[in-house]
């Protein structure tokens, strides 16, 4: 069990975002869709944590994830509307969604301290993956300056979350 979990985490952390690596660089409508999806998935993960966890630190972290990602996505929606861009679904968004659903199902079976640890570990890994994708693929590929700038703010926010998750993780040990 433990081995499977670590192997899965390692795979998630080390692999680049699925389907982007082989393909040509993503278009702005695809980038907008990926960034928005990544935020929504983290909100769903946080909502699961708020339902299941009783740990004060974990709940405060989850609450912050809901607030921050909602705020970023609100800005993203306002921007795509202004730019008249329709976010376009793509294999990367689909793979992220599928991975997140599998993770939620896995976490649903856990409770108490085991849930808290697994949720926070996954938050560290998930933010690392998304930050890696933002830095190496999404930001360099974005052609619209305003989209690029929003992604850069998003990267700073997500890097903050990664460190915050690491702090919570250290406190759980």
């Amino acid at each position, binding site marked *: 069990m433990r081995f499977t979990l670590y192997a899965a985490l390692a795979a998630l952390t080390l692999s680049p975002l699925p389907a982007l690596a082989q393909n040509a660089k993503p278009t702005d409508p695809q980038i907008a869709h990926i960034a928005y999806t990544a935020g929504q998935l983290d909100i769903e993960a946080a909502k699961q944590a708020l339902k299941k966890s009783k740990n004060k630190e974990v709940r405060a972290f989850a609450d912050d994830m809901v607030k921050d990602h909602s*705020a970023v996505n*609100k800005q993203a929606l306002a921007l795509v509307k202004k730019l008249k861009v329709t976010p376009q679904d793509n294999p990367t968004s689909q793979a992220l969604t599928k991975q997140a659903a599998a993770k939620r199902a896995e976490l649903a079976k856990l409770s108490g301290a085991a849930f808290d640890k697994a949720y926070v570990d996954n938050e560290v890994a998930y933010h690392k993956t998304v930050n890696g994708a933002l830095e190496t693929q999404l930001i360099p590929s974005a052609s619209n300056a305003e989209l690029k700038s929003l992604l850069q*703010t998003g990267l*700073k926010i997500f*890097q*903050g979350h990664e*460190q*915050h998750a690491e702090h919570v993780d250290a406190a759980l040990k």
Partner: protein
Amino acid sequence: MQPGRLVFIAALFGGIVCVVPARAETIKVEIKNLVFMPAEVTAKVGDTIVWDNQDVFAHTATATDKSFEVILPPKKSGSLTVKKAGTFDYFCKFHPNMKAKLAVAP
């Protein structure tokens, strides 16, 4: 009492009254796109630091040594009157990659 002396005394009191409030300053730190600006400020004991959060995200100004924590809701400001001299590193509890420094002279 000579009128001249009265003016002198009034000036003296006036001077004192003016000098005292002028000594406690308000120092403003702006937060924009997850950056404390300026990243380093110097103050004196009794001064007030005002953090103006222009982001749509909640932030905090939390001392590394836990001696203070100011909660900064989105688009709101928060303040702290400094009571202790020293150099304080602080960060945002929600985004620990946001770091800054406050130097307080006695």
